[in-house]
């Protein structure tokens, strides 16, 4: 059995026939070659697979592609515009908030959701707000700085 789904991914409409057991992350990585979204665990905890579904951060490894039918999905590939890093991405670079880069796409997508809900988060709010994303490299110190710096830049419309 397969199901037909139509969704918007990074602004482009996509229609595909998929096995119902296809996870959204599998659809993005394997069918659309959007390999910036990563898989780091199988229990929905590491957050490396975070994408935006209708503007809200979700774990694309813990939902079926079919659950995104009719929705708008945004992945890390669409966050920079015209080769220019988004202020949040720029802050990650400036603060050295990434090392191996594997958790980074999910971390950025979660950070954008966090800042959308709280445009001016303090350190505690950032730390608690990122509890759905694991990073094994940075010790989070610079990620926290980056999210605050990115939020400040976004407030200025930078």
């Amino acid at each position, binding site marked *: *059995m397969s199901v037909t789904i139509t969704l918007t991914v990074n602004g482009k409409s996509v229609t595909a026939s998929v096995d*119902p*057991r296809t*996870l959204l992350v599998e659809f993005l990585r394997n069918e659309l070659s959007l390999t910036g979204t990563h898989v780091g665990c199988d229990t*929905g905890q590491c957050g490396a697979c975070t994408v935006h579904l209708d503007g*809200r951060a*979700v*774990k694309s490894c813990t939902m*079926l592609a079919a659950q995104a*039918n009719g929705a708008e999905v945004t992945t890390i590939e669409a966050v920079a515009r015209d080769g220019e890093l988004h202020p949040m991405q720029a802050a990650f670079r400036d603060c050295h908030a990434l090392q191996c880069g594997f958790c980074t796409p999910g971390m950025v997508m979660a950070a954008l959701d966090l800042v959308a809900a709280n445009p001016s988060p303090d350190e505690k709010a950032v730390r608690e707000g990122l509890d759905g994303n694991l990073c094994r490299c940075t010790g989070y110190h610079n990620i926290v700085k980056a999210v605050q710096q990115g939020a400040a830049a976004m407030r200025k419309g930078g």
Partner: protein
Amino acid sequence: MYAFELHKAKSVADAAALIAKTGGKALAGGQSLVGAMKLRLAQPGALVDLSGIAELRGIRREGGAVIVGAMTRHAEVAASADVKAAIPALVALAEGIGDRQVRNMGTLGGAIAHADPAADWPAAVLGLGATVITSKGRHAADGFFKGLYETALAGDELVTAVSFPVPRKAAYAKFRNPASRFALVGVFVAQAGDGAVRVAVTGATATPFRCAPLEAALAKSFTADAAKAAKVSANGLSGDLHASPEYRAHLIPVLAARAVASL
């Protein structure tokens, strides 16, 4: 994940019929179900997706109760001004479920029907003496949670909403499992409009329960000191890598006291 058929329901009746016909399971937010299926721990032959049923979403105040639709996301409860005004404890509870991504997908109905022993919502349902409204009727909170992942729901019965009576005051305190971040122990304390006290505990056994010693203590004196002085037996409580029954028994009054103190 094993192969399965996927159906999308248009209405509650349609969903119930599809489940009855296929012997499948309802798919709400999928935060537990999809996870279990990925690990091949659950093997439903069919899933019936409820996300297209508009009547299952939304929050409304109705008399002395707040009614939350089954497909309402945890994040929507957490952000609801109506809930915050009526039962702020539910906002705090919803804000503490899983993580932001889980809260954006996971639903109240899914959590209630799944009845994970460490889930937060069951503590609120039981602690407030809520009514679970289903495709077949209504269930009182007491008696709804029957065992490990087991509820009073029939196989083809869908949760459509939960009606939470507005209490005089209520609070939830959760001690997170350091690994999973589920409730190692969660305690929901409530004093109803008529003054009756209910205390519900999640995470400590296979199914949430009302804690008689704490209810008695808080009925006498609704204070943190009274809660902390209560004695809870470790008999029958869960023991695992992260907590012995004795530790859980110790934490229950500590958390109840913290919940009361937060009011």
